[in-house]
């Protein structure tokens, strides 16, 4: 039997080719996602490990948590005397006083903007760092060493002058070019190395240090030294092993990769599910065509179990072949995915790819498993072919959908609809998820009932196009199960795309809007759009000094832990904020923030049952858990304008955070000042801060929307992949049904259907199937998006924003793609020799 399976697979290889391709594409996506994220993680690990290669221990100020949302928390500087105490401690060999942080590099007036960070650090040599001079010498006062890769890219040579800025800003002369280990630089980063006093000045550390790195004296046990140092320095300072500190930094950088991995794998799963429909369909059709042969096997004495095993074996072969080639393809796909993700604004390091055994196992396993599962139903059907079918002259008509299917399908649909409406009304997103899952199941069950009817309705205009149109419609309706599977696969992909499009467009509307409360004329923000913002506080001071400006208020962001969950807050100046924004309080007063305490949004107050006078436990990075009094409740529009639901005063913020960067400086202009003139005055005032960008409200909204748009673009492109697989399904189903209809096509040709009419007929069927899928997919996507938005919006009204233009584009692209999917089968049909076709058995 196994030999028969093998022979069958080989014999039907052309019919199984597209199945193989579908499996391969789906698996390539899975493998590509895994390879990409593994690679990125490994590269980041390496990057941080090499930079801390020879360090035994790192002494820093303690923090309640290391990082949040992929951003490492900033710690208080280590005072110089603490560094001295460390250096004098017994067992300590060498120490390095480190000042490091994020900086900016300007060359010839232009900001150098790598995909990742620009690392500003004090110079250090082995054994502490992996930096090594390639040319020139170590930096002294007002001098700088750059990584060789950046210098090369910027056409810089020794003796050139560059501007380096962080909290402060200085012009420095390039005196050396460094490599990092064997590499000329760090992936996606620029490295700027200066002497310690310059670094301290630029980073605003005074005489403090970011950290003290320690190499133990010969023969001293590092764990012993660590506990001795920790004891002598006290709880305020954290002593970690150099590798742990590097790992923590790497983990922060890897956080965004974890999100990316989840998103990519979810999209890959969508591709595989769509592929599963295609696989099930192909096996169904191929087996229907072979039903006489299978019946013959049964008549010759094969048991149903043997037939099942034989079919299942074929699926195993195709699944394995597809998975293996897909995995190989995936390694290449990883490069493409990296390009796409980087294009969408994600900072992923470049470097050689990592392929782990785990990746190989998951990819091959997932592809094979999906193929086997998808072939289960066709194999079971094949096993039930009765031996008498062998004697039957004509192929049996496809079964009408059973009563069970009808009843269970409609029940599921009703449940799904009820669930979605209830979830939307009760505003629970989890309920929407359950409803969506029910809806998808209902779609699969009801497909064979609904798809043909929809095809009848949608295909009505085809009748006017004469017999070819009429026949196209009829054959789309003829085999309900087959049409349903093809339609469902494509509809699923299109539903996801329209869901994401609608959701994204609504999200864009939300991020772009919500600023009605802001009355400022101009905003200054960082052009790099860092998560916490990146403006030096000096920017606000300089802008405030301008005569064109009437009022300035700067806000900054921080992360805190809300019972272990990362949350965000905004720090404002209660005195100046009302002059640049309309602040609406529903309880308490904004000015009460001056006494320390927190203002929460209306929705939060309601959900947590907080009232003015209650206390809220908040964990800050600098000083851990603190109990802040709730001093006010603000309206949702105010919360939206300030981007978070928790607001502190800047003074309170300074007590709990070491970070000292502003996110937005709101500027109200003096009466009668022309905006263009004000802009140029502002530009001149912040010229020393290359990342300070002056925006009006529309520009600021556009900048926020752009971020959403990029991610949306990435997701849409990747979903397009699932749609591509679904389109392969149309091609495949049509091609196979043409094989099945050879005699009918021969007859039509004999009685005078021209090749052109025939091609038209096949293409019309493809377009019809695509059109039905478009209808189902877009309606589903819209419905789910509406339910999700309703579920998400508690308190505030979240407006469903239907991007008609984009959806229309999706519809047009899908239908045109359907036409393209029909091209090959149409050509094949038209090429059939009339005589062979009509006399074929």
């Amino acid at each position, binding site marked *: 039997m196994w030999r028969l399976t093998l022979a069958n697979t080989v014999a039907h290889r052309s019919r199984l080719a597209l199945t193989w391709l579908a499996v391969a594409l789906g698996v390539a996506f899975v493998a590509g996602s895994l390879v990409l994220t593994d690679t990125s993680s490994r590269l980041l690990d390496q990057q941080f490990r090499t930079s801390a290669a020879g360090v035994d221990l790192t002494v820093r100020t303690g923090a309640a948590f290391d990082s949040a949302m992929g951003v490492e928390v900033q710690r208080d500087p280590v005072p110089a005397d603490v560094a001295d105490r460390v250096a004098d401690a017994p067992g300590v060999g060498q120490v390095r006083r480190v000042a490091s942080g994020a900086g900016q590099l300007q060359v010839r007036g232009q900001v150098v903007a790598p995909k990742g960070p620009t690392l500003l650090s004090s110079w250090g040599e082995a054994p502490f760092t992996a930096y090594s001079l390639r040319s020139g010498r170590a930096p002294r006062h007002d001098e700088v060493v750059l990584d060789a890769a950046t210098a090369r890219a910027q056409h810089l040579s020794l003796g050139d002058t560059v501007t380096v800025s962080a909290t402060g800003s200085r012009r420095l002369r390039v005196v050396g070019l460094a490599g990092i280990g064997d590499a000329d630089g760090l992936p996606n980063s620029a490295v700027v190395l200066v002497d310690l006093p310059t670094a301290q000045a630029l980073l605003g550390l005074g005489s403090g240090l970011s950290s003290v790195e320690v190499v133990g004296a010969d023969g001293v046990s590092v764990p012993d030294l660590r506990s001795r140092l920790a004891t002598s320095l006290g709880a305020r300072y954290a002593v970690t092993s150099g590798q742990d500190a590097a790992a923590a930094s790497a983990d922060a950088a890897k956080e965004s990769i974890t999100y990316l991995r989840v998103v990519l794998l979810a999209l890959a799963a969508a591709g595989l599910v769509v592929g599963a429909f295609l696989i099930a369909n192909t096996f169904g059709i191929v087996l229907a065509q072979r039903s006489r042969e299978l019946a013959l096997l049964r008549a010759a004495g094969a048991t149903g179990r043997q037939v099942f095993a034989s079919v299942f074996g074929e699926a195993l072969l195709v699944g394995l072949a597809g998975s293996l080639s897909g995995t190989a393809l995936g390694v290449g796909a990883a490069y493409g995915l990296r390009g796409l993700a980087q294009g969408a604004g994600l900072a992923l390091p470049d470097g050689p790819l990592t392929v782990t055994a785990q990746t190989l196992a998951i990819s091959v396993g997932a592809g094979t498993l999906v193929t086997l599962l998808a072939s289960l139903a066709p194999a079971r059907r094949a096993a039930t072919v009765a031996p008498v079918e062998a004697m039957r*002259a004509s192929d049996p*008509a496809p079964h009408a959908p059973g009563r069970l299917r009808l009843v269970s399908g409609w029940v599921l649909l009703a449940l799904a609809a009820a669930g979605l409406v209830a979830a939307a009304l009760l505003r629970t997103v989890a309920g929407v998820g359950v409803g969506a899952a029910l809806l998808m199941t209902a779609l699969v069950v009801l497909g064979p009932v609904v798809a043909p009817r929809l095809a009848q309705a949608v295909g009505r205009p085809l009748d006017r*196009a*004469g*017999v*070819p149109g*009429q*026949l196209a419609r*009829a*054959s789309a309706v*003829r085999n309900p199960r087959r049409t349903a599977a093809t339609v469902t696969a494509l509809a699923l992909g299109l539903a996801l795309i329209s869901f994401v499009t609608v959701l994204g467009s609504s999200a864009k509307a939300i991020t772009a809007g919500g600023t009605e409360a802001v009355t400022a004329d101009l905003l200054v923000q960082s052009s790099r759009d860092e998560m916490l913002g990146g403006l030096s506080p000096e920017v606000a001071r300089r802008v405030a000094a301008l005569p064109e400006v009437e009022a300035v208020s700067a806000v900054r962001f921080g992360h805190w832990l809300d019972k272990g969950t990362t949350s965000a807050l905004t720090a404002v100046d209660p005195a100046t904020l009302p002059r640049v924004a309309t602040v609406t309080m529903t309880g308490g007063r904004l000015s009460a923030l001056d006494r320390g305490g927190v203002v929460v949004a209306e929705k939060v107050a309601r959900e947590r049952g907080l009232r003015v006078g209650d206390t809220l436990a908040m964990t800050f990075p600098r000083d851990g858990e603190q109990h802040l009094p709730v001093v006010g409740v603000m309206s949702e529009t105010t919360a939206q304008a300030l981007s978070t639901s928790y607001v502190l005063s800047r003074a309170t913020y300074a007590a709990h955070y070491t970070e000292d960067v502003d996110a937005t400086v709101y500027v109200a202009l003096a009466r009668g000042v022309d905006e263009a003139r004000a802009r140029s005055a502002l530009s001149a005032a912040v010229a020393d801060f290359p990342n300070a960008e002056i925006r009006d409200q529309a520009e600021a909204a556009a900048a926020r929307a752009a971020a959403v748009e990029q991610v949306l673009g990435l997701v849409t492109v990747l979903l397009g992949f699932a749609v591509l697989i679904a389109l392969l399904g149309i091609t495949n189903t049509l091609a196979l049904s043409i094989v099945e209809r050879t*005699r*009918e096509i021969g*007859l*039509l*040709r*004999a*009685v*005078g*259907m*021209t*090749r*052109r*009419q025939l091609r*038209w007929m096949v293409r*019309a069927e493809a*377009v019809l199937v695509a059109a039905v899928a478009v209808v189902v997919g877009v309606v589903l996507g819209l419905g789910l998006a509406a339910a999700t938005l309703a579920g998400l919006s508690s308190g505030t009204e979240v407006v469903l924003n239907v991007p008609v233009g984009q959806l229309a584009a999706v519809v047009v692209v899908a239908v045109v793609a359907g036409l393209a999917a029909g091209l090959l089968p149409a050509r094949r049909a038209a090429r059939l020799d*009339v*005589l062979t076709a*009509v006399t074929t058995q």
Partner: protein
Amino acid sequence: MTTPTTTTTTPTTTTPTPLTAPRPDETPAPTPAAARAVDVVKTYGRGEAAVRALDSASVTIPSGRFTAVMGPSGSGKSTLVHALAGLDHIDSGRILLGNTDLTTLSERERTLLRRERLGFVFQAFNLVPALTAAENIALPLTLAGRRPDPAWRAELVDMLGLGGRLEHRPAQLSGGQQQRVAIGRALVARPDLVFADEPTGNLDSRSGAAVLAFLRDATRSLGQTIVMVTHDPVAAAYADQVVFLSDGRVVDELAAPTAESVLARMARLDAPEGA
């Protein structure tokens, strides 16, 4: 979406003729031939495996007659009829339909010619399953973007005894009914020539007899030219004349055949092989 160009047709030389009158020959030539094959050679395969299916076969199909083509298996009878119908290419020789030389036509011209001037009845799988009986009958006309003449269609349906079955799909019809629908389709465009390839091959003897009687009546009362391939002497006896093929050549003709006389000729054809 494009619309098919069903309205463009090649000009044909047919002119409408009275239903019941024998169709006058469309050409001024004195021979009342509907179709002719002249020295047709057709070879399948190559080299050692080459089979000469038609070996300079020549035959004339007289207009307004019911001609049966017979011969042992492999004699080339199907190949000859396929060649006459423009369904198959030939290696050399000429195929004339009226005054039109099929061998000079392009694929598209031959398709349009089939649609306009020829009718077909096959042994099995004769109808498009997705269309009703009425739609199947009208198929050649609708493909050309025309509508059947209602009076003519009504007469056909009446003669074929298909009244009340017109809205049924092929799967709902018996084999005999299906074959009668196929005949209706073959006749609806009033073709110059109808080809029937073993039309009773899949039918029981009673249904087969009805189909054959109908084909004969179509010739007698409508003057329809019909060519039928068969290996059944009883079926051949319904024809006005029988053409016998052997080894790719026309070897004999028989006018006013009966089952017995056909059987006798067949026996003679088979004899040299058996000896």
